[in-house]
């Protein structure tokens, strides 16, 4: 009898362990509903872990996204079109020689703890970075060429640089309160919570691999946000985040894949946002990698030095299929090197140059170039060796994983044997920088000003013999291209410059050291029943999350409290003229407005581009 009782006990125990938590949700959603009534919380699902919330350390996409809402900057990118406008700084001026910058801070700035925010705070922040190597971890590149930083009075900050620096209005450095951070012994250590900040929210609590909680900052100079709390909740896998969105556990999520985006379509409580990305995706073809002084490096297949072979490969890659099958239609077909989101500089090949996808044509090109087919259908190079090429893919990138087999399949049809080599992001970076690849997936975030991405293809961007010092892209080193590049650098007539940039893209297209695959969209979704909408950046067809600023989170508008604000460059906000929901599904035709504003700030951005695109796509994917 006793054993029976023991058995019963175990059964009860197991049942209890399983059913008690099951029974909980009956009460839990109510608790959720109640808490929503009391405080307005914006719960954001993120699929990337926070590396650190130390403003001097954090470099991941999620980390910087959170810090942007917690700490203000001297200047910020506007909501409209990424133009720099004042934030903590109200105005600024530069000396004749462009070596001295004087920033005027706004009146009455306050930290979240009520202490006044003066020029001493940015001065301390910058000086700390000048003095302490650890403090330079995340954003050290900005201050590399600085001479000195000084707060001449409460409102005035004077920065002297050694050489003229174009990024002075794009300093992506969170300003920290001196009265807190001067007492920190180890500047690289994890910060204390709650953090004293100056952004629209203050960071209250951080749970490793779980969530970050922020509270509205009543002292934010633009005014307190409508949302009282902002939670960033970490989901290791994006399906879980989507399910959570469907269940109402979170309100906003981004970086959806096409399947997820489609599956949310039918949900009446969820609004979707398909935004244009600044990114282009490409496959690099190693044309014979060399160092900046022309010494060959790497182990690229020498056959690829032949432009005919590269062009044939480019002809055998079908952007349309990739857009349909890989991106599920949420992308734009390949055109020029500059993504179409930057309409002015974007180029698309004219009919006579356009490479229509055709395997027959590619085969014909190869036949003509003298690549005979070997016994097993694989073509032989000029030395009679079979054309076996490696295609390096990022092991964690869905695009590479899905698109790789397509490229392999197409190239097999034209007699080129591809071995797929999935490697970690870092390994791909190292290998491509050292020229140790045949074909490789790559991609970049472009900027309103195309200078930086254009510079990647110049001879000068190639690395030293150790594969360090520079970040090359395709190892193209072409006289004509470099000539055009230098011309556009010095060209101040916008129309002529646009022309030059288009010519450069034509050269790139012809040399075929890279094949553009397409431009994918950023897919986001939010709970329409909980939120009216969010300010997008850029305002037309832009993103909610991962903005270059705090507009999306700051302007989050709970349901019934609309309309969604539009943030003007003078620091005011006006009511939005359009619904953000589903807005991006219609293609924006407002390029004229964009053009005008872009023109106004073009000089600043011309040299300032460096900061935007300073990383390669796969890491850019992971960080800002």
């Amino acid at each position, binding site marked *: 009898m006793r054993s029976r009782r023991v058995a019963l006990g175990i059964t009860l125990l197991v049942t209890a362990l399983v059913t008690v938590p099951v029974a909980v949700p009956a009460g839990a959603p109510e608790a*959720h509903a109640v808490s929503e009534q009391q405080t307005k919380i914006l719960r954001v699902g993120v699929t990337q872990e926070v590396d650190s919330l130390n403003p001097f350390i954090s470099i991941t996409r999620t980390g910087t996204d959170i810090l942007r809402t917690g700490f203000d900057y001297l200047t910020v990118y506007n909501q409209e079109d990424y133009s720099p406008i004042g934030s903590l700084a109200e105005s600024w001026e530069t000396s004749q020689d462009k070596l001295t910058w004087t920033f005027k801070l706004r009146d009455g700035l306050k930290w979240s703890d009520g202490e006044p925010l003066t020029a001493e705070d940015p001065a301390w922040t910058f000086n700390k970075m000048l003095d302490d190597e650890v403090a330079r971890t995340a954003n050290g590149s900005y201050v590399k060429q600085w001479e000195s930083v000084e707060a001449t009075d409460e409102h005035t900050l004077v920065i002297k640089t050694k050489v003229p620096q174009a990024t002075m209005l794009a300093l992506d450095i969170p300003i920290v309160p001196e009265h807190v951070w001067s007492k920190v012994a180890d500047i690289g250590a994890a910060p204390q919570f709650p953090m004293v900040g100056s952004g629209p929210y203050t960071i209250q609590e951080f749970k490793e691999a779980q969530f970050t909680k922020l509270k509205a900052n009543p002292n934010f100079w633009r005014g307190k946000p409508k949302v009282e709390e902002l939670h960033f*909740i970490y989901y290791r896998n994006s399906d879980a985040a989507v399910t*959570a969105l469907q269940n109402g556990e979170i309100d906003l999520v981004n970086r959806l894949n096409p399947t997820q985006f489609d599956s949310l379509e039918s949900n009446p409580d969820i609004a979707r946002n398909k935004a244009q990305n600044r990114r282009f995706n490409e496959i690099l073809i190693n044309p014979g990698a060399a160092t900046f002084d022309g010494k060959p490096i790497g182990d690229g297949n020498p056959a690829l030095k032949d432009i005919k072979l590269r062009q044939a490969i480019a002809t055998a890659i079908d952007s349309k299929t990739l857009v349909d099958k890989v991106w599920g239609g949420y992308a734009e077909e390949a055109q020029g090197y500059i993504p179409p989101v930057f309409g002015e500089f974007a180029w698309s090949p004219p009919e006579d140059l356009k490479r229509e996808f055709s395997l027959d044509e590619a085969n014909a090109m190869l036949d003509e170039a003298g690549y005979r087919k070997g016994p097993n259908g694989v073509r032989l190079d000029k030395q009679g060796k079979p054309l076996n090429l490696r295609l390096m893919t990022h092991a964690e990138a869905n695009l590479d994983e899905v698109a790789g087999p397509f490229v392999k399949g197409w190239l097999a049809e034209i007699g080129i044997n591809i071995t797929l080599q999935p490697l970690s992001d870092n390994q791909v970076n190292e290998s491509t920088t050292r020229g140790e690849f045949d074909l490789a997936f790559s991609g970049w975030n472009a900027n309103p000003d195309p200078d930086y991405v254009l510079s990647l293809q110049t001879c000068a961007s190639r690395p030293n013999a150790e594969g*360090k010092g520079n970040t090359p892209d395709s190892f193209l080193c072409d006289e004509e291209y470099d000539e055009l590049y230098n011309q556009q650098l010095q060209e101040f007539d916008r129309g002529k410059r646009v022309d030059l940039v288009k010519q450069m893209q034509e050269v790139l297209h012809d040399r075929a050291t890279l094949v553009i695959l397409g431009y994918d969209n950023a897919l986001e979704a939010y709970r329409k029943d909980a939120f009216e909408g969010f300010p997008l950046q850029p305002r037309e067809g832009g993103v909610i999350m991962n903005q270059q600023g705090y507009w999306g989170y700051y302007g989050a508008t709970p349901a019934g409290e609309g309309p969604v604000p539009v943030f003007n460059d003078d620091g005011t906000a006006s009511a939005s003229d359009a619904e953000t929901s589903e807005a991006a599904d219609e293609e924006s035709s407002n390029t004229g407005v964009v053009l005008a504003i872009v023109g106004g700030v073009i000089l600043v951005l011309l040299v300032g581009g460096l900061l935007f695109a300073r990383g390669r796509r796969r890491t850019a994917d992971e960080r800002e």
Partner: protein
Amino acid sequence: MSDILTPTEDALAEAPPPTRGGGALRYVLTKIGGGLVSMALVVVLGFLLFRVLPGDVIQTMFRGRPASPELMAEAEERLGLNKPLFEQFLDYLWRLLHGDLGQSYVFNVPVTDKILERLGPTLLLVGVATLIAVALGLWLGTRSAWRRGSRFDRISTGVALALWSTPTFWLGMLLLAATSGLFPTAGIVYSDTAPDFLSQALDVAHHMVLPTITLVAVIYAQYQLVMRSSLLEEMGADYLTTARAKGLRDDLVRRRHAVPNALLPTVTLVFLHLGFVIAGAVSVETVFSWPGLGLLTYDALRVRDLPLLQGTFVVLAGAVILMNVLADVLYRVLDPRVRAS
């Protein structure tokens, strides 16, 4: 031990097996020594494995950020990567002895801190799941062995085998799909749960349901099968006939005599299979975004955060080794036979 037989018998009788004084201490020390040797191997392997992983550590650190050669050299200097490998090893050993597992490249915090943060959730998940799995496995195993060939035996063994045959992550995925909306899909607690203990605990329990069920489903089969075969083996033993001859009821025979003996090999197995459980935990934590060591390991692998990897490897392996030493000691307490041999 004094022999108590009569003098003549003492002189003539076969000598009983010697029992040494201080045997317990010796035994424990031997086991601890063995554990230390294993631990040393783990440490060496951890060093070798994560230093031979191809890839430039410095590049990894900077993760594609533009950095001048001087800056890289500086970092190399700071991390001691320019020293000979053996010196690096000594360095690593020295710091390890001080509980310093290095600095995570990605998170920029001491690996030790990172691991300590993640230890709790993993202990909770693995602990609860193991307890349930052991209880369930032993109970089912005992029942099915005792009623060998019965329908209960056939069905429960079949179910256990089927679950055991299933990849952990797949089971998790199916559970996710099947219970959509009933349970949280990720994490350990909602961000907006009231901070009081009861709400937090209930919320954690709620979050734990799916990961725990998945882990239990995959691991309990082992315990059931071993308990079953172990008990079957004991069931032929003579002392059970003795017990029956004494007039003991069937269930008493089972509970007092058969099960305690059959339990012994199972106990060892529970600990020996902790490595397996941890493998399961990596899968489960990945599928359910459980913020534990398994997820940390996988994420560290993804971004090739070598010090972090090294740290999780050493800690996970060390934990299993420690548990095995404890198991050996426990075994000695449970099984008097081990004490003498």
